[in-house]
């Protein structure tokens, strides 16, 4: 207890030098939590939006389907397996038929993915209900597609495609609704139509390319030769992007933290040098070398504790403000390839705060301890004379 009190009095007594170290360390502390919170928020925000608009609770893919190889699209369709049809009939899954087509909005030529979906579905957050009406071919598009093709609700445009046999066909579609989403993967370069109409247009009755299952749907063990892709697989790209970003960010943490720790290390070395006589006196009064080491290490460690407290004073309101108001993203953030929207909301978990606090305290304690090892070799007589080996 005496050691603790002595260490505390010493560090407070050091005045401005202590507070400078504490403030710099607190910056690192707050910045690490803030940045980590942003990455966590980025991951959760993108994953949540993708699950809601695109992935559901996982997807069954036609064996030939490869979203990264558009050349396979022509062959990646087939009858929906019975196991999945049962789920579709119960409203627990939704089939999607995909083909490529060309659209001519205002006489301009644009290649798109033409997707057929059940208008009655509720698995995905797409407003497919608007595809129910009309004698004409109702078309649902996203805001990005609407912008790139210069289309608005009520506009007609020609769609040209090739059916299952390769015969050209064309029809005019009418934009019945435009949806806004952060998920570019269901919007950019895509047009949505009722699946029954698309099956008829392509001459592919009862066929599909993928089947999206609901969040709480029990995944059938087998569905013909269709391949099940779970959320870990479907979200692996986001996880990889976040992992890469975290690696980049950790270099920044290391730099910031090392600056703060270097300052503490310097302070400790300087303190040992300037307080040689004090150490000699304390040893002459009966204090052991171990107790001295403890005092000096504790003094250093107090930097960490004070940094946590100081960081909390300005960091807690700041982080809470960011959590509520988010971090506004520029317009070009949409091109990052992640479903983030206009604002990124950070998420600070308890483990993030506890983990970061412990990490900083541990690093500060180690850095504080290292210079004090010299005390182990200190002779009281030399110390009293102001010598240190």
């Amino acid at each position, binding site marked *: 207890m005496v050691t603790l009190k002595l260490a505390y009095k010493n560090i407070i007594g050091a005045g401005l030098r202590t507070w400078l170290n504490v403030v710099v360390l607190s910056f690192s502390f707050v910045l690490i939590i803030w940045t980590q919170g942003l990455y966590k928020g980025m991951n959760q925000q993108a994953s949540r939006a993708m699950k809601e608009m695109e992935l559901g609770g996982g997807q069954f893919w036609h064996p030939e389907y490869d979203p990264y190889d*558009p050349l396979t699209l022509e062959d990646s369709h087939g009858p929906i397996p019975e196991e999945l049809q049962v789920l579709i009939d119960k409203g627990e899954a939704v089939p999607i038929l995909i083909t*490529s087509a060309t659209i*001519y909005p205002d*006489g301009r030529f644009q290649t798109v993915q033409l997707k057929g979906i059940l208008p009655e579905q509720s698995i995905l957050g797409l407003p497919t209900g608007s595809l129910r009406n009309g004698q004409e071919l109702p078309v649902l598009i996203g805001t990005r597609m609407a912008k790139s093709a210069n289309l608005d609700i009520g506009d007609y445009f020609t769609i*040209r495609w090739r*059916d299952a046999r390769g*015969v050209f066909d*064309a029809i005019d579609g009418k934009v019945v609704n435009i949806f806004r989403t952060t998920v570019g993967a269901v919007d950019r370069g895509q047009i949505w139509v009722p699946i029954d109409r698309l099956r008829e247009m392509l001459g592919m009755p009862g066929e599909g390319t993928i089947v999206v299952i609901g969040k709480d749907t029990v995944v059938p063990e087998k569905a013909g030769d269709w391949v099940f892709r779970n959320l870990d697989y479907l979200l692996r790209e986001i996880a990889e992007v976040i992992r890469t970003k975290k690696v980049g960010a950790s270099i920044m943490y290391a730099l910031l933290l090392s600056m703060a720790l270097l300052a503490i290390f310097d302070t400790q070395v300087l303190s040992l040098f300037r307080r040689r006589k004090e150490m000699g006196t304390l040893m002459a009064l009966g204090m052991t070398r171990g107790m001295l080491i403890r005092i000096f290490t504790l003094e250093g460690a107090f930097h960490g504790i004070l940094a946590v407290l100081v960081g909390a004073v300005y960091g807690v309101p700041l982080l809470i403000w960011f959590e509520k108001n988010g971090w506004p993203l520029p317009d070009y953030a949409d091109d990052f390839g992640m479903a983030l929207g206009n604002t990124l909301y950070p998420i600070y978990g308890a483990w993030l705060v506890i983990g970061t606090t412990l990490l900083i305290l541990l690093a500060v304690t180690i850095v504080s301890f290292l210079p004090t090892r010299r005390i182990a070799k200190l002779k009281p007589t030399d110390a009293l004379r102001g010598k240190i080996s």
Partner: protein
Amino acid sequence: MKNGILPLLGLVLSILHAQYPPAEEILKKIDANLVSKNRVAVTTMIIHGRRGSRSVSAKSWIQGDEKSFTEYLAPPREKGTKMLKIGDRLWMYSPATDRIIRIAGHMLRQSLMGSDLSYEDMMEDPKLSNLYNAEIVGSEELNNRDCWVLELTARTTDVAYYSRRVWVDKERSLVLKENRYAKSGKLLKTTEVKEVFPVDGRWYPKKILFKDMLSKGKGTELIIESIEFDVPIPDYIFSKAALRK
């Protein structure tokens, strides 16, 4: 009265129809006129876009219906680009990237050098008699030439254009105008022969205007600068190795 008119009308129509030669024969004559064992042609494509026109020149070696090799000669940006078609496969070589890529799937639907022709237009079987049933629907004058008007309907289910209407020069057995329709009946493309020239005892199109009727462009003109029929073409031309040479 009515009972008398209908058979009479039928009789008149059948007499008129009997004056027409068999449509299938006309198709065969068209194919015989256009198709050759092999040919080498130098062409210029004038693409009329929204922001003006540009020309692309190319030399093509064509063997029957199956094989063709095209090397682009101008403009400098396209010079050295080569295309090889063997059966239903198409490859393209770009000197800028020094890469050979296979054009397949949705890429076939893309425009060829920004023109009104797509890559898949190049892949079509040029022999109409292989693909369509024909019916003569009339006789019209087009560009001061007497023409048969033929309605072509796909004979097979895997033909690109479900139906076509063609205007065929009666004397020269040459298609002077063509409308290509989608299955739904929508007009997709038109071709119009603006100029013809005699070559090796046959009449051949000299200048053709292609127009994608769904887009707002002014069309693409194809001018045949020179053409030679039945000249020997070495086999190595139709190989992927020739693309890089």
